């Protein structure tokens, strides 16, 4: 586990990605003033429920949000090695996509093109960015398949995606993403679609590759187990906002935001006495009308009138820990309402 010392590789500041909904139901503020840093070599986890803006955040970094209806608001900053990705010309942006910053998607079933062999798809990035010949790109693809632990790579390379299992396909996706040895890998729920044993294998593979290639990983997940085992720092998102950031160990020892607390309580425990699973009451509200004040207050067990009136900023809770919650200033109120 590395502790960030050097300058941030990727800086996201005040990222706002809004979607214009049809029929005039207003603007969905899917990502609203999200800021975080990613340091070289570290793994940063982004956790949150479905619909809280994790995926839109990750797509925004490479400007892959479908436009329209989505758009990234001016004033947002996504800085990679000192260059603002949001201001880059399309051509320069393309030279970063897949080359410096690569991405793995949630669904290995649908993220591979069904009409091409996996070899063609892995070779593609090498052909685009490194201008390799077909022959050299093919050798490269075989090498990548071996790297991600696929047996008989020189045979598998000519297989079509539908001939492979889900875990194999996710390995192929990883091989595709890593062909050009990117500095940043964005993994958007890389294991959600896989079963648990395969999930563990894929995450171990990612950890190993990260060590080997020295890249930074942005791991987006809703699974706190994955966060605990595979990240150095965590960003918790709720309703389009960052609500808590902390080193991974700190987050689990001392969850500060009530939402994080709720998420941790909702994890089923093997050794605990049997009881109903804890759940956070209610659902993430619609992105078109977030609640006033703190966006979590309608679901928060500690909420008082100040929470509904005024949204807290990210407050420093010490030891690299920040939380968007008034409890940081008034800790005595951390008592559930009767």
């Amino acid at each position: 586990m590395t502790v960030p010392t050097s300058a941030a590789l990727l800086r996201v500041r005040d990222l706002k990605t809004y979607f214009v909904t049809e029929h005039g139901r207003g603007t969905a503020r899917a990502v609203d003033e999200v800021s975080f840093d990613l340091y070289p070599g570290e793994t940063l986890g982004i956790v949150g429920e479905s619909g809280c803006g994790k995926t839109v955040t990750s797509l925004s970094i490479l400007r892959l949000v479908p436009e329209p209806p989505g758009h990234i608001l001016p004033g947002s900053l996504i800085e990679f090695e000192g260059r603002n990705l949001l201001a880059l010309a399309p051509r320069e942006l393309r030279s970063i996509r897949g080359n410096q910053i690569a991405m793995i998607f949630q669904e290995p079933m649908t993220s591979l093109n069904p009409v091409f062999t996996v070899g063609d798809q892995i070779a593609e990035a090498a052909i685009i960015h490194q201008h390799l010949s077909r022959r050299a790109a093919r050798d490269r693809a075989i090498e990548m398949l071996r790297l991600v632990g696929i047996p008989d790579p020189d045979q598998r390379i000519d297989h079509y995606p539908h001939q492979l299992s889900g875990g194999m396909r996710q390995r192929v996706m990883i091989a595709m993403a890593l062909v050009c040895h990117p500095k940043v890998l964005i993994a958007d729920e890389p294991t959600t679609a896989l079963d648990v044993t395969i999930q563990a294998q894929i995450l171990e593979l990612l950890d190993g590759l990260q060590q080997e290639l020295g890249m930074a990983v942005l791991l987006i997940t809703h699974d706190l187990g994955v966060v605990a085992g595979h990240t150095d720092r965590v960003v918790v998102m709720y309703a389009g906002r960052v609500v808590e950031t902390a080193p991974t160990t700190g987050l689990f020892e001392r969850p500060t935001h009530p939402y994080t607390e709720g998420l941790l309580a909702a994890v089923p425990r093997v050794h605990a006495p049997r009881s109903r699973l804890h759940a956070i009451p209610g659902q993430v509200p619609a992105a078109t009308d977030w609640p006033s004040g703190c966006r979590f207050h309608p679901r928060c067990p500690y909420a008082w009138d100040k929470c509904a009136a005024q949204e807290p900023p990210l407050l420093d809770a010490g030891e690299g820990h920040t939380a968007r919650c008034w409890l940081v200033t008034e800790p005595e109120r951390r008592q559930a309402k009767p």
Partner: protein
Amino acid sequence: MTFGSWLALMVALVLAYEAVRWLRQRALRDGGGRWRRFFRHPTTAWGCGILTFLVIIAIAAPLVAPLDPIVQPDPVGLKNLPPSWTFLMGTDVFSRDVWSRFAYGARISLGIGALGALIAVALGSLVGAVAGYYRRWIDSLLMRIVDIGLALPRIFILLMAVALWDRLPFAWLALVIGLTSWFGTSRLVRAEVLGLRERDFVVAARALGAPSGRVIFGHVLPNAAAPIIVSAALSVGNVLLLEASLSFLGIGVAPPTPSWGNMIADGALSMYGAPWTTLFAGLAISLVVMSLNAVADGLRDALDPREDAA
């Protein structure tokens, strides 16, 4: 008919029949799922056979045809003769050998059909892909053009175009027909691309840094191949019919060059006395269109991804 042309005709028949039979047997015995589905219906095999035969006739026209299709041997004595061993399909009002004209006409008609369809499908795919992928104003613009193209009767557009240039050479005629036949295909391809552009693998390709052109032609269009191929097969028939109607109206292929449409036009006046002058060309046009429909059905079955589950 000379001995040589009889021989060539027999060879063409046997060749077409055997080639299709061999392919079908192979496909049904040990071909993959696609080939088997393609040949599942006997009509598809018949369609293939008929098309193969006509294509061979077109290519080998100088061997198959005993006489020059344009020459008029004896406009008085040999006029409107019924089919016989010497004149396989009889002679027309100008004493020309209908069979020779049929064979050379196949060249022109099938040639224009294939070339026109190729142009129409290429252009339609391009326009449909661009409109469907980029959306926004370019989509609206292109689709309004398509709406206009579909709303105007095609034959009038062609009449206008043809009127501007008087008699068009063969390639130009194919081009003009192709340029007015792509509207339907572009709508079809656009609809397909609209669905495909939202698919994860398209986002994945963009995330790899692939430029738009590469995404469209390398990732999106290959996934739309099935409807494009089927529409190409149907287009050939449409273009062929269009060429025939233009030629019938006297503004298509310039006489005396034979095309199936020209032959019908030439024989139309003597249809009651000498039906063979129009019958064979008309039959060929219908057969080709029906065969292409049968083949398109087979292709649709063969390329249907739902039948290709992992």
